[in-house]
């Protein structure tokens, strides 16, 4: 019995969440599967793949001082396996805890 077989029983959403959670120690992690919104795309029409497009909102201290590009790269690097196995797109909102605290007025 291979370990690889066990991981594929978990959904992509679960795998993404756990990878990001453990590496980035996110305080907020929201992941929505929006594959249905892209089912009609030129590139997706022929495919019956599931879990291809997600919206991610993630808050982590580790983004402090990083440009948006760098933050997105951090996320993408952690998910490179997924990106090579059918994850087509990930909309990312990546903030630091400071950035989401409403300003005291």
């Amino acid at each position: 019995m291979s370990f690889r077989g066990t991981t594929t029983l978990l959904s992509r959403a679960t795998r993404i969440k756990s990878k990001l959670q453990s590496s980035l120690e996110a305080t907020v992690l929201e992941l929505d599967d929006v594959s249905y919104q892209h089912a009609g795309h030129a590139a997706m029409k022929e495919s019956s793949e599931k879990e291809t497009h997600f919206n991610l909102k993630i808050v982590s201290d580790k983004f402090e001082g990083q440009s948006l590009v760098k933050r997105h790269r951090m996320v993408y690097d952690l998910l490179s396996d997924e990106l090579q196995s059918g994850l087509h797109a990930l909309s990312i909102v990546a903030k630091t805890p400071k950035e989401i605290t409403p300003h005291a007025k």
Partner: protein
Amino acid sequence: MEVGVVDEPDREALTQAWKSWMEEYIKVSGKVPPGNESGNVTWTRPQPKKKPDLRLTPGRHVQLTVPLEELVDKLVKENKVVAFIKGSRSAPLCGFSQKVIGILEKEGVDYESVNVLDEDYNYGLRETLKQYSNWPTFPQIFLNGELVGGCDILTSMFEKGEVAGLFKN
């Protein structure tokens, strides 16, 4: 040309008259009378002609003398703003690419576009670009030879009012 008289011409009566006349015509000739079909563009305002998309190679039949990555590098360094999108700028094929084009057009940015789905002139571009940029998705926007990001990042800049200042001279 048909001329008919409609008594008491309110909207309903006129629509009904038009409908029955259309049905009659179709019955007789089997076609919709000319000028009555939708999709007629005679009176629509023509879209200003958009710049054509850039192509990386002259076509698949021509053997490349330098690796595709070099051509990409040259392209992003020689053009201030380059958007690598799915589809063409006049007909983007994905929502994210469309959004990016929308923002650039709205802000009046002078940009070049490259269709990464074009298998004739940009064969292999998607894989090459993913390596080159170390970025796994499209669209990708480059400014002065550097990756700015994808749709999310451009959108966030747009919402903060940063696009014009950054991308225009």
